[in-house]
């Protein structure tokens, strides 16, 4: 269906190419007039001086970013109706940021890369389906406390720290959660990870690079498993699948590199290659899974778990004190 009156839509992105794409696509929707802004300040200016019916904005921009725009709008700090639909898009999504957006009743998240068709459908849908937005006063009173994070002088990437994904945990809020949003009360247990696979402490493959990659793979699998158990949305599962596949990709890459440079240890590499072959197949199947279908994911957990148990054997893994690292 096509909107029946003329709607003015503001699109905001600091990447001109994306801004022009949004403009071109949304202009092609009948009865839609589009205004562009390439930064948050210009967006606020337009919102103050024009009556905007929908805001579509990137999250990650120079200040004010998309989230700040949403906050200002919903809390009535901008001279524009505070209850217009707001669609956010980004290439990365972070749990805290997504939770904050949900607290401010964002209407939808769009994952990059966007397609013209998908974008049009979303825009038309949100122009036709009104979402209940509370009084501006409610949004003024929201206090968001981000998850506790350890403060470190320099945080190395991909260490043995508990894995924190940069994927959003997107879940539907229940009515009661929605009304009485109190982020401070978020249960600690909700972020605890149940472990489907475990990289044993004090064990090694003999190559610290492989140990690290295996540990990361375990963390990603466990994180994905937890998302699945908590019935997270398909988009979150799909993102996490991508990350598992990337972890497999890295493991293979590191393994091949080590194999080319290390001498001997024939039996280790024969075993490794056999396990990697199976993991590659598993990764391929995982990449093909439709995250909306639980029945496709469930058997893969069994296969992953089985692969893990089969792999964590000699000669692949041995106690750390048995020998030093090869590299």
């Amino acid at each position, binding site marked *: 269906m096509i909107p029946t009156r003329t709607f003015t839509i503001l699109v905001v992105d*600091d*990447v*001109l*190419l*994306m801004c*022009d*794409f949004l403009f*071109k*696509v949304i202009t092609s929707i009948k009865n839609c007039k589009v205004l562009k802004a390439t930064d948050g300040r210009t967006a606020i200016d337009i919102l103050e001086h024009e009556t905007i019916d929908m805001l579509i904005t990137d999250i*990650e921009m*120079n200040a004010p970013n998309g989230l700040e725009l949403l906050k200002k709008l919903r809390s009535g700090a901008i001279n524009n109706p505070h209850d217009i639909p707001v669609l956010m898009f980004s*290439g*990365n999504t972070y749990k805290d940021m997504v939770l904050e957006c949900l607290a401010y009743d964002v209407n939808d998240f769009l994952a*990059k*890369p*966007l*397609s*013209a*068709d998908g974008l049009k459908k979303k825009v038309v849908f949100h122009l036709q389906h009104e979402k209940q937005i509370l009084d501006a006063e409610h949004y003024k009173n929201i206090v968001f406390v981000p998850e506790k994070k350890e403060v470190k002088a*320099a*945080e*190395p*990437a*991909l260490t043995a720290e508990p894995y924190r994904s*940069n994927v959003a945990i997107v879940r539907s809020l229940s009515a009661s959660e929605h009304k009485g949003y109190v982020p401070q009360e978020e249960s600690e247990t909700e972020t605890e990870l149940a472990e489907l696979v475990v990289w044993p402490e004090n064990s090694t493959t003999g190559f610290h690079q492989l140990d690290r990659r295996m540990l990361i793979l375990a963390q990603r699998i466990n994180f994905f498993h937890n998302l699945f158990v908590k019935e997270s949305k398909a988009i979150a599962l799909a993102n996490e699948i*991508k990350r598992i*596949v*990337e972890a*497999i*990709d890295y493991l*293979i*890459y590191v393994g091949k590199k080590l194999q080319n440079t290390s001498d001997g240890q024939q039996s280790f590499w024969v075993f490794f290659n056999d396990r990697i*072959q199976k993991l*590659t*197949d598993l*990764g*391929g*199947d*995982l*990449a*093909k899974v439709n995250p909306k279908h639980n029945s496709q994911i469930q058997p893969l957990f069994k296969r992953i778990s089985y692969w893990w148990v089969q792999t964590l054997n000699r000669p692949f893994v041995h106690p750390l004190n048995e020998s030093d690292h090869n590299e």
Partner: protein
Amino acid sequence: MNKGPALRPLSNRPLLTVEAISLIYGESDAGLIIDTLKQFRAEALGYVIQIDKLWRTGAFDDITRYVHSLKTMAAMVGAERMARLCQVFERQLKTRDMVEAQRSYPVFEVVWAETLAEVDKCILADGEASSDAE
């Protein structure tokens, strides 16, 4: 053996798949593709120059933002290798894994040069085709 796209190493990813533009825009007009490539070339070049300047000053927050934007642009025109590299580079910068980021930067420069050459080739080929038609 079934390999998903993300299993391919960086060097196996195509430099430029212009079909991505058609898929994203839902149109296969040659003019649109070339205009998009020209816009990408101009905008991305500006970002790369900024990153080059900032790299020497150590303004990593700004670099991260520029790399993030470059990733978006590259994905929009099907510059897969560039997009993937930016994704990895952005993650390294965000986590301040400077050892890995220092390793990635020279690769970033090389991949950008290769991508740019490929984009120029496409634009040039279109120009030649247009003048032939005239």
